[in-house]
């Protein structure tokens, strides 16, 4: 399948590029703020669970893998198989969100205030905005699993991969760099 040019709907690419730009600006801002508040950032980063972040990464990459197989199934007319894979991919998205909620509540219980600390303001904004995309993407996968034609599946799965891609960039910067 040698496809030339941009695969899929070009409008979804506009969205992907815009989203990645927003996250990239957020991450660069985070790294600049780290330089201005080195101590605070280093101390705060030890409150985060790098393990949870790693597990989140595995969940999303695997979910993206399932979604990609679902798409090729839709392409070859295997709609029922595609539906199953999309639901599984969405389930992993739900697991990601559950893990994120546990991380947030753990930070909350340890008295972290998201206002007032540059680190946690940016942490909450960036991961919160990303989690909102995961929630939206999960819903999208479930909706298209109702009628998994290629036309429906392709843009939703592309959106889902954007969510993967963003986490690949967010995770090391927020969890690993400031340590």
């Amino acid at each position, binding site marked *: *399948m*040698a*496809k*030339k*040019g*941009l*695969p*899929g709907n070009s409008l979804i690419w506009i969205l*992907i590029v815009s989203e990645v730009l927003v996250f*990239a600006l957020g*991450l*660069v801002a985070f*790294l*600049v703020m*780290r*330089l201005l508040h*080195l101590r605070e950032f280093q101390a705060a980063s030890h409150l985060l669970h*790098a*393990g949870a972040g*790693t597990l989140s*990464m*595995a969940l999303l*990459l*695997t979910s*993206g*893998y399932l*979604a*990609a*197989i679902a798409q*090729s199934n839709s392409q070859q007319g295997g709609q029922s198989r595609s539906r199953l894979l999309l639901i599984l991919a969405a389930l992993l998205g739900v697991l990601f969100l559950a893990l994120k909620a546990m991380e947030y509540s753990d930070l909350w219980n340890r008295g972290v205030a998201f206002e007032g600390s540059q680190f946690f303001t940016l942490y909450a904004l960036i991961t919160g905005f990303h989690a909102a995309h995961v929630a939206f993407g999960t819903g999208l996968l479930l909706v298209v699993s109702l009628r998994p034609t290629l036309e429906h599946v392709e843009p939703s799965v*592309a959106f889902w*991969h*954007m969510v*993967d*891609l963003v986490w*690949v*960039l967010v995770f*090391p*910067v927020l969890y*690993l*760099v400031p340590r």
Partner: protein
Amino acid sequence: MTQLTRSWLVMSMVVITVALVLAVAPGLPRPVWLVLIMAASFVKARLVLLDYLELRHADEWRVGAMAALVALLLVMAALAAMA
């Protein structure tokens, strides 16, 4: 084995490697640590773009995406390496 499966396996290995290093040798010198995590991000982001988002056969779009990715990672690595 399809290209897609191979990519997923490679990415999984990368995730596990970083996690292991983090667990076994948390006191790694900072430059080594930064190179490791940025390289890991590059491998994962590249494969997501090439095989999940299917840019592998999209010629100039692939080149553009890779250039943008490398530029972003270099900026982030430079900022992370300061101080």
